[in-house]
């Protein structure tokens, strides 16, 4: 049984007027992640990556409705009560946030903020929880001789703060770690070290990782499997190596072509995907990518594509997928 099994997850927000239909922010997202596995979720801003992450933790903003199923160890989180979710959050599933500058409480010491989870979930005494938190901070690379655990977040650099955020997430040894763009707010050198740390922790502790990023490079480095999201849907999914070697969805191939590393001469413009993601309340009836796709025909604009693929591991939702490269 998969550790995380998301089936047909749809998240809606009520329409802007009383009679307007609800707007679908996520539209039938299905993902699976085995225990100890790594899954990358990639896509442009606004495609629903972060919303998927928040839905897994049951922390969707007020007013949003989730339907479908999110199973963790077979238990459906969408029907679980708030008490049960509180017991699971931080204990079985934990999250690393994007913005280390604002994710920490400015008025509590870092050791305090790390100790809070263990105190609750592992039922440790105040003193034991702090000891545990000190050990976790050391484990994520904050040497107590250089960065005192009794510091407040404002005394730390962005990279150090992100290490604290990671320490909070891994403090109770969760089975699933959701990392939502953990390196986006950091400079390049720090990004690499934080990615190394996440990879090292995941392997060392046997956690499963759901890595969310807009950066294909980050996904390639951290995730064995990947899923590409576009306009609230998963458009292509499969083993990372296979998807990157032979993308079948025109959007995936466009994303890969738009990477700076893949571009030709320095100074030459990057091959951008024309157009923009359709807003959630104005998605076309057919394929959401049709308006930006060179291969689209009239059928693409009227019939939504079904997820099919060359085999059960590599799937693509496209009427005219690219040929697999030989």
């Amino acid at each position, binding site marked *: 049984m998969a550790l995380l099994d998301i089936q047909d997850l749809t998240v809606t927000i009520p329409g802007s007027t009383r009679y307007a239909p609800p707007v679908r922010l996520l539209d039938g997202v299905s993902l699976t992640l085995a225990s100890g596995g790594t899954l990358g979720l990639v896509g442009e801003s606004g495609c629903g990556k972060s919303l998927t992450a928040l839905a897994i*933790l049951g*922390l969707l903003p007020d007013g949003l409705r989730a339907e479908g199923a999110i199973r963790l160890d077979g238990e459906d989180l969408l029907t679980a009560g*708030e*008490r049960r979710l*509180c*017991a*699971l*959050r*931080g*204990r079985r599933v*934990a*999250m690393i*946030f994007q*913005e280390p500058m*604002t*994710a*920490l*409480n*400015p*008025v*509590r010491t870092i050791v305090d*903020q790390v100790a*809070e*989870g263990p105190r*609750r*979930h592992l039922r440790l005494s105040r003193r034991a929880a702090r000891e545990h938190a000190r050990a976790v901070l050391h484990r994520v690379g904050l040497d107590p001789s*250089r*960065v005192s655990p009794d510091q*407040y977040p*404002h*005394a*730390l*650099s*962005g*990279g*150090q703060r992100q290490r604290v*955020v990671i320490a*909070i*997430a891994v403090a109770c040894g969760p089975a699933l770690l959701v990392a939502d763009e953990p390196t986006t707010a950091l400079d390049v050198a*720090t990004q690499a*070290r934080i990615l190394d740390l996440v990879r090292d922790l995941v392997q060392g502790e046997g956690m499963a990782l759901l890595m969310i990023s807009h950066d294909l490079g980050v996904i390639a480095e951290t995730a064995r499997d990947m899923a590409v999201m576009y306009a609230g849907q998963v458009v292509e999914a499969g083993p990372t190596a296979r998807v990157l070697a032979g993308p079948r969805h025109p959007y995936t191939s466009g994303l890969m072509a738009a990477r700076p590393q893949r571009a030709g001469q320095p100074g030459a413009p990057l091959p951008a995907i024309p157009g923009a993601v359709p807003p959630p309340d104005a998605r076309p009836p057919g394929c959401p990518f049709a308006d930006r796709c060179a291969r689209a025909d009239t059928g693409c604009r009227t019939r939504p594509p079904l997820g099919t693929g060359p085999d059960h591991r590599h799937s693509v939702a496209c009427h005219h997928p690219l040929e697999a490269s030989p």
Partner: protein
Amino acid sequence: MAWILAQRAVALALTLLAASILVFVVLEVLPGDPALLILGVNAREDTLAALRATMGLDQPAVWRYLTWIGGLLQGHFQNSLTYGVPVDELLAPRLAVSLPLAALSLSLAVALALPLGVLAAARRGRATDTAILALGQLGVAVPNFWLGILLVLLFAVTLHWLPAGGFPGWEAGVGPGLAALILPAVALALPQAAILTRVTRSAVLEVLGEDYMRTARAKGLSRAAALWHHGLRNAMIPVVTILGLQFSFLLAGTIIIENVFNLPGVGRLIFQAISQRDLVVVRDLVVLLAGTVGVVNALVDLSYAALDPRLRHGADGARPDD
């Protein structure tokens, strides 16, 4: 922390200096001869001159200012023109009424406003929130002297639960003393609580949207636990700021409320001193009030530092690199 203390002490001294010069100059410029006030309009000119000389009024203004301030600094108060006793002797029994009244109404305002404001924020947009907001609107709109009269009508005249006014003195016991202060304290506190509730509500709402609240929830804290452990302290800074500002209004409010309830407090003393042109009392009291406001502002600044570690050192220190 010591640096902030020193800063605040200097600021307080400067405030007091400015306030004392201002009140002295204003009273100097205003018409009204204290000697004439004491002796009456029918007094003979040589008697008036003699009294002016004994009161030191024939001295130059700068000299009189320096004598006054020098005396205050040594704890030596001049005699009131109407009562003939040093101002501190007038002040002591009245402070024994006004200070408990201020403390009682401030604590009442805080005790009402914090829970209501947090509750309104936690139930944003629901019936509870709307009800608290409506009550708050009413509280802001109602003037406290009118509220005082209504309270007297209900609790003193109709129900006979509490005295309508006057003060029996603390000699009569703590119970009767407090009973006399309850209605005035409520009348002072309710409008303050109304404003403070709104401030608390918006401060908590803002904090609820912060990223660290989501981090707290992702750790497994319930909504209430996250608010309690991570939200409140962050929400307190705007609340404390408003509380400090409200203290000045509270002082102004006591002048009115002590008159409504016939309480022998500092507010009533100021009112009487002004109407009797007792300039010696007026200027001492103005400096006292300025000092009180200054001390409260200093306390507010110190509480910022206690609430938020980022404000503890003058400037933000250099951050170590990763």
